[in-house]
């Protein structure tokens, strides 16, 4: 009886150890898998490309993804995993602009050819037309592996576990080379136009993703360029062999039955053929081939039927109120926290744009006075923009006192206090004063004579003034570009909510 109890106890301990040890192994395996996947992604990222994982053939410029995760969470995910999930594939937009963009090169001989279709067509069972696509190159990638980690999930080479078995090793380090790499894309200017056109026709769909009260935005992630690879080459070095047999002399060949003494070259070829047959038998359907093999290292070469996308470049467009699309921001810049794409500057129509903004503000004030609660919120957000202004005017405002003379007269001096309590009115005033001064100073400098010293002094002074005004406008516009309040106001006035 006592013995029975004792054996039950031992069994329980063994079971517990087994359960915990298998849990540990799984956790370790997952950790290692994540690490190798991240390392792989880091190689792609090092080339300023956002990695795609797992590799796919089905991603191309003009693909638009709906990004649902808040951007700060995406940054965390990107830093942790090294790549981003492809999320919701919202739409694939086709355009004939590739013909102009590539100027009829790379087999894009007419505007009806939209890549990569013409390169994907198989000439015969083993060849495609990707060779004529624009080429690309990536640096080699170094890694360490152990058996039992399901490596084919991390590196797109299915024969890696087999190679480890071949070297009779549980531990290896290696290098992976992304070979036969190609790239193609389209410029942001055309793509943005394409996406905006689609966005205008699908406002009702985009409206569902307008910003909610939590302040998080949805983005349309537009793929503008993809990078593909046709072949991955991996060299594995047996770390157990190098550590245990550092002084063991010449490398030993892989042990195989049927190898004869004498003809080394013939034996080697026979061995490689036999190994490749073994690989095919053990992993049917796998295309990887062993190029060289020895006890210390194995080189694998894995071609893909057709090249697969390993990474992309793109830009994000925030979905604003009413389903309107905001200014494009580089996806990479957004994820790495570096600078974003600057908004386009339109100097020519400045006064009319500014007047339009002033009228929008007037319209909003009218709506608020008639009790519109939504307008009240929009106006409140606009008024907060006055925080972007400096405390004092950094330039002098001039006017032209007479049509008969080009002389300028100050109507408000540099250093005057800005009344930020006036909210958005203060912003319009600031830009209006700046534009008036800029316009008059430019006109003055273009026709003023510079013969006497006094005249030269005045010209110098006004040139400095013009610089001050121009930098003041640019500084405020840069700040305003990062704000959505103005876009929301335009939406509110012109589009049904």
């Amino acid at each position, binding site marked *: 009886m006592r013995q029975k109890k004792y054996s039950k106890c031992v069994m329980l301990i063994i079971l517990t150890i087994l359960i915990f040890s298998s849990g540990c192994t799984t956790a370790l395996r997952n950790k290692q898998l994540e690490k190798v996947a991240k390392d792989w992604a880091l190689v792609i990222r090092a080339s300023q490309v956002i990695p795609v994982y797992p590799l796919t053939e089905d991603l191309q410029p003009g693909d638009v993804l709906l990004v649902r995760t808040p951007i700060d969470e995406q940054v965390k995910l990107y830093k942790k995993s090294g790549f981003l999930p492809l999320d919701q594939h919202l739409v694939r937009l086709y355009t004939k602009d590739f013909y102009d963009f590539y100027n009829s090169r790379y087999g894009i001989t007419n505007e009806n050819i939209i890549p990569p279709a013409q390169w994907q067509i198989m000439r015969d069972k083993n060849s495609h037309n990707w060779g004529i696509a624009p080429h690309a190159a990536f640096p080699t990638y170094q890694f360490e592996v152990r058996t039992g980690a399901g490596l084919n999930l991390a590196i797109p080479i299915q024969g890696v576990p087999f190679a480890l078995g071949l070297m009779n090793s549980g531990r290896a380090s290696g290098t992976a080379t992304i070979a036969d790499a190609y790239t193609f894309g389209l410029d942001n200017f055309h793509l943005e136009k394409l996406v905006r056109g689609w966005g205008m026709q699908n406002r009702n769909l985009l409206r569902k993703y307008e910003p909610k009260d939590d302040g998080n935005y949805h983005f349309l992630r537009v793929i503008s360029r993809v990078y593909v690879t046709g072949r991955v080459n991996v060299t594995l070095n047996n770390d157990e062999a190098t550590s245990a047999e550092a002084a063991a002399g010449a490398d030993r060949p892989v042990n195989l039955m049927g190898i004869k003494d004498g003809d080394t070259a013939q034996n080697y070829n026979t061995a490689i053929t036999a190994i490749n047959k073994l690989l095919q038998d053990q992993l049917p359907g796998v295309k990887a081939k062993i190029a060289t093999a020895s006890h210390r290292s194995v080189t694998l070469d894995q071609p893909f039927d057709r090249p697969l996308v390993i990474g992309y470049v793109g830009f994000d467009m925030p979905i604003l109120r009413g389903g309107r699309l905001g200014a494009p921001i580089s996806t990479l810049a957004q994820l790495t926290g570096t600078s974003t794409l600057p908004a386009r500057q339109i100097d020519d129509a400045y006064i009319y744009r500014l007047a339009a903004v002033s009228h929008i503000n007037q319209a909003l004030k009218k709506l608020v006075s008639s009790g519109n609660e939504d307008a009240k919120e929009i106006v409140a957000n606009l008024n907060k923009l006055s925080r972007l202004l400096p405390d004092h005017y950094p330039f002098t405002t001039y006017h032209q006192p007479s*049509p008969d003379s080009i002389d300028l007269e100050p109507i408000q001096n540099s250093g005057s206090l800005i009344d930020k309590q006036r909210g958005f009115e203060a912003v319009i005033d600031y830009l209006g004063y700046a534009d008036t001064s800029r316009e008059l100073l430019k006109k003055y400098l273009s026709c003023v004579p510079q013969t006497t010293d006094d005249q030269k002094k005045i010209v110098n002074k006004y040139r400095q003034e013009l610089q001050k005004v121009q930098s003041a406008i640019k500084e405020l516009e840069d700040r305003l570009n990062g704000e959505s309040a103005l876009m929301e106001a335009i939406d509110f006035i012109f589009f049904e909510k």
Partner: protein
Amino acid sequence: MALQEKRSFIQDPEPDMTPEDKNMHLSAKLAIAPYRRMQIVRIDRIEIGASGWWITYRTFS
């Protein structure tokens, strides 16, 4: 502070503008500072010599 009358000239940005463009330009100018905040008492059109608008306004000095 005494109330003063002052004048400012808004020149047409281009020669040979259509009446519609001239009016639109003046309208845009009046919508923004500094003209928006002026207490304008009279607007006259000048076509001889420099073309544009005379704006007469009142201000404290």
